[in-house]
């Protein structure tokens, strides 16, 4: 029907925010639609074009046996598969269940836990199928999403730096909240991409883009404890949030609290 590359957007356990980022590209949405065929994007369109797809964007983590099957089918139909967001890339906030007893969780929320079918763990897409690129963030940054789309369209590498939030913070000329206010900030170990918005709003980064390419979480935790007076359980919680199941954060979180 059309010789434009076919784009599909898939959803697993998530808040929808990352795929909404595409609709939030108000200035570029129509350009995107001109360059690719939105073949499968349920949130935006009831039209569905059959696969295979040139690029699949996958949002959400795998939390049910059915989804574990479904992601395989998605992979089979996709030339390239890019995960978008912390859920798809690290299991998301719902991976906090991985540290607990899911049955107890189910009982806490539902009157009839026997109706619930869920896996004991919320896991990233890459635990199930091959992923070509992982875009970070809870939620992703829409500028970065456009960059990834452009890169895949024009067969180049996405320019998505893997350094720390501190680099963005400093490039913006933001005053470091740790140094100037004694505010604990995960920026030094967190993957860039958001543009250092938390420090820009006078608060410490809470790690929603997950671990940077290189992290020295023990040193940061040690400094928080000794110099900023952060208690152990607080430290544990700081690392165990939106990217709790990302190996570096998980390991540091488990060391505390």
């Amino acid at each position: 029907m059309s010789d434009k590359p076919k784009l599909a957007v898939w959803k697993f356990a998530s808040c929808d925010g990352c795929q909404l980022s595409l609709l939030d590209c108000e200035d570029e949405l129509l350009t995107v639609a001109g360059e690719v065929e939105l073949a499968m994007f349920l949130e935006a369109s009831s039209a569905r074009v059959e696969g295979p797809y040139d690029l699949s964007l996958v949002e959400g983590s795998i939390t049910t046996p059915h989804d574990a099957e479904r992601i395989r089918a998605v992979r089979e139909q996709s030339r390239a598969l890019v995960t978008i967001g912390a859920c798809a890339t690290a299991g998301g906030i719902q991976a906090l269940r991985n540290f607990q007893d899911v049955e107890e969780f189910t009982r806490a929320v539902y009157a009839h836990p026997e109706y619930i079918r869920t896996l004991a763990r919320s896991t990233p897409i890459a635990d199930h199928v091959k992923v070509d690129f992982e875009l970070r963030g809870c939620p992703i940054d829409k500028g970065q999403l456009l960059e990834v789309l452009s890169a895949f369209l024009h067969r180049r590498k996405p320019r998505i730096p893997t350094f720390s939030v501190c680099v963005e913070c400093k490039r913006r000329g933001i005053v470091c909240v740790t140094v100037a206010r004694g505010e604990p900030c995960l920026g030094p170990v967190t993957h860039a991409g958001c543009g250092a918005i938390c420090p820009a709003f006078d608060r410490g980064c809470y790690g929603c883009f997950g671990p940077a390419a290189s992290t020295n979480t023990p040193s940061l935790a040690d400094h928080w404890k000794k110099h900023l007076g952060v208690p152990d359980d607080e430290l544990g919680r700081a690392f165990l949030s939106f990217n709790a199941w990302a190996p570096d954060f998980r390991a540091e979180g488990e060391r505390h609290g």
Partner: protein
Amino acid sequence: MAESRSIKVDYLARVEGEGALDVRIEDGRVTDVRLEIFEPPRFFEAFLRGRRSAEAPDITARICGICPVAYQMSAVHALEDAAGVQVDGPLRRLRRLLYCGEWIESHTLHVYMLHAPDFLGKHSVIEMAKEQPELVERGLRLKKAGNAIVALLGGREIHPVNVRVGGFYKIPGDRELSQLARQLETALDDALATVEWVAAFDFPDFEVDYEFVALRHPDEYPFNEGRIVSSRGLDIDAREFHEHFEEVHVERSNALHCRLKQRGHYKVGPLARYHLNHGLLSPRAQQAARVAGLGDSCRNPFRSIVVRAVEVVHACEEALAILADFERPERPFVDVPAGAATGYAATEAPRGLLHHTYRIDAAGLIEHAQIIPPTSQNQGTIEDDLRQFIAPRLDLADDDLRWQCEQAIRNYDPCISCATHFLKLTVDRR
């Protein structure tokens, strides 16, 4: 016509989250209507336990990427209620401004991208853009204005980072705020044009005698404060919510349904707010509603698109008013003392009433959390609507009937991702 048929929509499109519809018709009678939710459970209330109360706004935002501000607002109000703190003055106005942003953004998303295609016989806004690009550009511009408010006050459009218990982390600069005002002037025009546009759509004849539930405030169209009232005489404080409402995990249904005790299903959202508060809409919004022929009440769920458009006008106007006499607060937040307590609050998410309850221990950790999102309150009503809607339309061809049923669901702008209460259920098909 076949004696027995079944209308199935495997994946509902243009709704937030994943669901399906299954309607069973036997001997010309609707025997079963199921709104099936695939959205797997995410257990927010369970893992909120043991977290610091200050984390609640950031965590609950992640329940929904479409209306994170609503979750943040209900959370901070409930936690302030627990601490006995009232946030007033400029800080309170800024919170309303933030809420205006989310309403504009979320409603415009629904009006232009999710719902309007139904009325125009299109699959998506992209298809609409091929024929009427200026119209779609207007929608995008309006949505962008809403997002601009959220991004300026919150740092980003989705999961803003600037909301804290007691206020904000930082107040944006005066220059940025005044630039925002300029953008909103255009947005107000766009919003008025939107009302005119959607009011002219063709609406099916369909009225339902709902019990409407919404917040009511003596002198404001409700966002983040007020008593919980209904069209049938309910009038309670948010603290009394659980005495009047109950969540039931019924086997036949797919989610935790929230019901009014004894009375059953009710309706929250734009129609409910409009019914209970239309006199408090901003002047231009009231005028637009009048011209659009909404009257004092609108009981046709298909016309909710008009009410949403009117609410966008209100949000633009109120945002402009807040910016016009903005006073910089002395501090971006007020201190909120710690201490064991329980707090309750309801705010008006774009899709309707959103109630939060938190019990906090002496160390400031959450012991118990309960979150009741609008879509779980409307769930029963959506199915009731479908039943009533389908019965007189059984002679429609399957495709048409399916399209109209989907549209009937989209009337609610159901946010299935607000999944704290939703689960997948194996449906027994005999």
